């Protein structure tokens, strides 16, 4: 247990030394907030509405943070470690490779929470966003979103033959989901064809769920979203684990 705690601490420290990881998880979402805030302003989403654009943008950007860590940082670190035989080195110790993989999940999870927190603080300070939902609903929704994104990243690492193919797979899915799920621009602006595509993207359900609970909706109203995100987590994790077992780690 002591070894695992030290690995977690070390992985967290290594994450903070990765400029791109830190930039995209902690800084980029705030820059998006400033950019889109500058473009659209913080007006009501429709005339007379109580909810303003930034109230729905911040939870959507929070999902973007889960995408950055789950679909970029985590899988690319996992894949890079495998390619460089770093896991093999850990397998030749009493702790084994599972410990370092779990430590990477832990480090990315913490960084996701920090990224979301920074985003919320920026939203509050710059645009006085309203968070009507309770802590439990927001917490559960955040966990479901993180779990779905992380499990997809895990699956992509298991599918990718090397770092290059994993990077391609992760970037492709990340950017498609980023632009078509409503995470960067409201899905109400999408034409019907794009809306139909976005229905197939797990991130769409994460964005809907987060926007809903931030607006004060009860979790009961989002059974479908929770079911889909939970299903994605279970299927991707199980499939990823099965594929990982077949990989040659040596």
């Amino acid at each position, binding site marked *: 247990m*002591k*070894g695992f*705690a*030290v*690995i977690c601490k*070390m992985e967290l*420290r*290594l994450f903070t*030394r*990765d400029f791109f990881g830190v930039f995209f998880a902690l800084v980029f979402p705030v820059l998006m907030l400033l950019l889109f805030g500058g473009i659209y302003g913080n007006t009501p989403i429709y005339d007379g509405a109580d909810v303003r654009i930034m109230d729905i943008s911040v939870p959507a950007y929070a999902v973007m943070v889960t995408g950055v860590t789950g679909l970029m940082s985590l899988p690319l670190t996992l894949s*890079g*470690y495998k390619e*460089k*035989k*770093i896991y*093999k*080195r850990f*397998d*030749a*110790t*009493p*702790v*084994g490779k599972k410990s370092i993989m779990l430590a990477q999940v832990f480090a990315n999870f913490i960084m996701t929470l920090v990224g979301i927190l920074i985003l919320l603080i920026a939203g509050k300070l710059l645009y006085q966003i309203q968070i009507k939902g309770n802590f439990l609903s927001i917490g559960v929704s955040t966990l479901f979103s993180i779990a779905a994104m992380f499990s997809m990243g895990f699956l992509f690492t298991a599918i990718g033959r090397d770092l290059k193919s994993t990077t391609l797979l992760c970037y492709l899915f990340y950017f498609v989901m980023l632009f078509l799920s409503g995470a960067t621009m409201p899905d109400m602006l999408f034409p019907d064809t794009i809306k139909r595509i976005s229905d197939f993207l797990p991130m769409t359900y994460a964005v809907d769920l987060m926007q809903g609970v931030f607006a004060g909706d009860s979790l009961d109203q989002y059974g479908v979203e929770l079911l889909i995100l939970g299903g994605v987590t279970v299927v991707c994790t199980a499939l990823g684990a099965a594929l990982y077992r077949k990989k040659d*780690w*040596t």
Partner: protein
Amino acid sequence: MSKAIIRVENLNLTYKTLHAVQDVSFSVKSGEILAVIGQNGSGKTSTVECIEGLRKPDSGLIQVFGKNPWLHRREVYKEMGVQLQEAEYPLKIRVEEQCRLFASFYERPADWNLLLAQMGLDEKRKCLVHKLSGGEKQRLSVLLSLMGRPKLLILDELTTGLDPEVRQNMWISFENIRKGGVAIIMVSHYLDEVEALADKILYLEKGKQQFFGTQQGFREYVKGRISKEEWEENFSLEKLYLMLAPKTTGLSMEGIL
């Protein structure tokens, strides 16, 4: 008579259609140094990776401290230190962080500050591991293999990339470690190193065990495989080994000029 720490019987390993290790059997006792020798691709690393529990053999028996290393890897690694042929470390990790990390894996880790000084890496403790030279990385790998105060040490190409002075120093170090009762398996292409350190030799050719026994036994084995005209009593181990290797003529100038 000390008990065998490692027992390998009829070990077989295949990669798809390649039979990488075929019917290899040997044992190693505490305080003994076994050198695994053979050409590139002869199955040396595959054999030791089976002992390390990193590869699952197709058949055969492997016992390390009486346990199957594939099934009981964690327990075996509490007493086994390994230096892999090729291993990298996380990109942004510093030398002392890597040492601290590995020290946390063991209940009673070695004094890594002392080891850093002895390995000549004391001044590099704040350096990023990936910025170290090849020889420095190799020394760090050896240091990390010693972190758990092992009773069995497996060194795959121990001195590759080290300058002659450091190599000599390593030989003395491992002789001292052996005297402390630690069993050592070394995979090496440096036959002078094998001659200086090894009690026993395992010689592999295309995955097949050709010889297992003492250095003197190896001498007799080679003598039996070559003609009387070729034999000289004072052959070095390297010369003996080369007598067994297929004769090559090197590159012809035709292809270059």
